């Protein structure tokens, strides 16, 4: 029923948030639209999944100290534990 679905939802969300915590401070590769990939240090994500905050974003013009990547522009990201 709805209560069971809500319990599952909470368990899935908790595991996801633990994953975000594990990503913090790690060098992360973001795959963006149009075949562009960028490297940055993972900072944080907002609760509504609108944007990722990253540090040391490596761009062709140099390293940006801090940046926001819009989730709609990001297809996937990966990092090593």
């Amino acid at each position, binding site marked *: 029923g709805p209560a*069971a*679905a*809500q319990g*599952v*939802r909470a*368990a*899935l*969300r908790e*595991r*996801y948030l*633990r*994953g975000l*915590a*594990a*990503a913090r401070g790690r060098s992360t590769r973001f*795959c963006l*639209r*149009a*075949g562009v990939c960028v490297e940055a240090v993972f900072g944080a994500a907002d*609760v*509504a*999944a609108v944007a990722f905050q990253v540090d040391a974003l490596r761009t062709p013009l140099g390293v940006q100290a801090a940046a926001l990547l819009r*989730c*709609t522009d*990001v*297809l*996937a*990201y*990966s*990092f*090593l*534990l």
Partner: protein
Amino acid sequence: MNDWQMKSPLDWEKYVNKMVKVAAVEKHEYEGWVLTVDPVSASVVLATFLENEKVSISVVLGHAVQEVEILKEGDDEMKQRLSCIFVPEES
């Protein structure tokens, strides 16, 4: 919203602890063990075990997911291994 984002938490839970292939937009493909699916964004969190004992985590954002195919079921040992990945280390 795509079909994957429209699924319910009970649907997403069926993929947890399974080896899957995720087909994403722009012909991207990702393989790994499903750790979770974020119920807010429908993003799929995958783990792959590398030869040097490291774990690679890939997150495919829900809006980019086109299809998720189950390749293999996880046994109890794999479930245990996956459940330990995001547990904070005791200090």
